[in-house]
């Protein structure tokens, strides 16, 4: 579904990511773990097309998309949930969802029903301005916004960041069921142990801009193995 080959990305000429090669197969849920500043968010931005790579290539669904702009990638079926959620604060919940119609041009209709099923609070607040909602609600909206266009691949950048545990819990449960029910392939970045263990089928560990390890299901279950790459 998604492959990167020797991807090198940075701001200006200074690389943040170096020679990153990873693969995500159709239907997988893959995590990327790493400390703050390791380059996780940079990787996500490079994958959605907000940062141009200095070197290397990105292949999506068999097509090389290295030079595609973000909106083209989105229309090809890549959904993106930015790190700080970045909902459009002055638009209502419903309008936020509407913006994402461009995600996945192949999708026939917006999956309002589906996302409202997952996040009923959004339906209640459909006409509320997004900027006036709590962080957790904004996170749900950000997920719903990406999901509403029925993407084939979903990029999630630290979904637990700054969110109360109950919602983190809910998201940790929702994502795998989305993966299962809608067949959406998921690649996420996280540093919350519970979330990683609750969602990922396998994991890449990233340190100072390079992938240093790949963890299968067995090592994922091992707190210690994971913790090595996270905050402690």
């Amino acid at each position: 579904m998604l492959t990167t080959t020797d991807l090198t990305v940075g701001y200006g000429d200074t690389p943040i990511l170096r020679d990153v090669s990873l693969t995500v197969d159709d239907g997988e849920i893959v995590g990327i773990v790493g400390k703050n500043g390791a380059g996780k968010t940079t990787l996500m931005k490079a994958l959605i097309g907000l940062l141009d790579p200095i070197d290397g290539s990105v292949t999506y669904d068999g097509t090389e998309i290295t030079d595609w702009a973000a909106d083209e990638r989105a229309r090809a079926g890549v959904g993106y949930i930015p790190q700080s959620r970045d909902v459009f604060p002055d638009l209502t919940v419903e309008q936020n969802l509407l913006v994402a119609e461009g995600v996945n041009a192949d999708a026939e209709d917006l999956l309002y029903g589906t996302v409202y099923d997952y996040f009923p609070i959004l339906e209640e607040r459909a006409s509320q301005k997004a900027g006036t909602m709590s962080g957790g609600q904004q996170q749900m909206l950000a997920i719903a916004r990406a999901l509403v266009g029925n993407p084939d691949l979903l990029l999630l950048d630290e979904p637990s960041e700054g969110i109360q545990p109950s919602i983190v819990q809910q998201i940790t449960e929702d994502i795998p069921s989305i993966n299962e029910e809608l067949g959406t392939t998921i690649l996420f970045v996280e540093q919350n142990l519970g979330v990683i263990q609750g969602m990922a089928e396998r994991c890449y560990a990233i340190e100072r801009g390079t992938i240093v390890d790949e963890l299968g299901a067995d090592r994922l279950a091992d707190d210690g193995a994971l913790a090595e790459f996270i905050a402690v």
Partner: protein
Amino acid sequence: MVNVVNLLFQFLDSFAFIVLAAIGLAIIFGMMGVINLAHGEFIMVGAYGTTLAYNAGAPLLLSIPVGVLATTVMGLVLERSVVRRLYDRPLDSMVATFALGLALTQLTRIVFGNSLSSIGIPLGSVQYGQFSYSMYRVLLSSVALAVLAAAYVVFTRTEFGIRARATIQDADTASAMGVETDRMYTVTFGIGSALAGLTGALYAPTMSIVPGMGSSFLVEAFVAVVTGGASVLLGTTLAGGGLGLVNALFSNVYGTFIGQIALLFVAVLILRFLPNGLSGAVEGVRERMERENT
């Protein structure tokens, strides 16, 4: 003695003028952060398009769209060729649009001469007692309201408008949602240009058609944009209403001279005491009320 009907008509007239003078400028500035110093020339192009079509035999109702279309096409071409390159340099875009304005005025003069024969004001007058007022000028206030309402609907109710606002709020995220942000900017600039053209088209019958005619809209346009504040449509409406009322009241009682001075004076007061403009003040009050209610 203040004649209330006179005052009302003068207010509507003034309101329409301020709103229509400002709206194109306000949308391009408010949505895109570009100060279009060629705004006056955009209006002029609208008026020229309309007048040329009318003089060629088209009825007024058909000539107005011609003027709007001419300005829109010009706006789109300029956005693609010039303005686009300067989105990250708003101050340079002022110099560039100034240069465009300079060239546009003189090109118009070279091609069409110093003046076009003008269109008569249609619709006649409303009579009341010893007074009468130009029907068309009064009607322009409804057009101004309609333009505001249409702009409101376009930017808050249509998919395009929602995407355009999303782009303005966060272009990166919008593009990651599949929005073609470049196109949003182009279309928004096109809408701003179209509205400037509409202003020119609508006022063409009431004015002398000369290449420099756009400058007579500039003071009101810029004053309205500055006093209106960040929220474009609300700001333009409030500026049109507030400044229009001041202008009409003082013009009515003391003459056009005092009317203009009063308008400028009030604008300075607003700038001094409401740094976020009229819309900022209104939204501030609304937010405070909401916070207290929740």
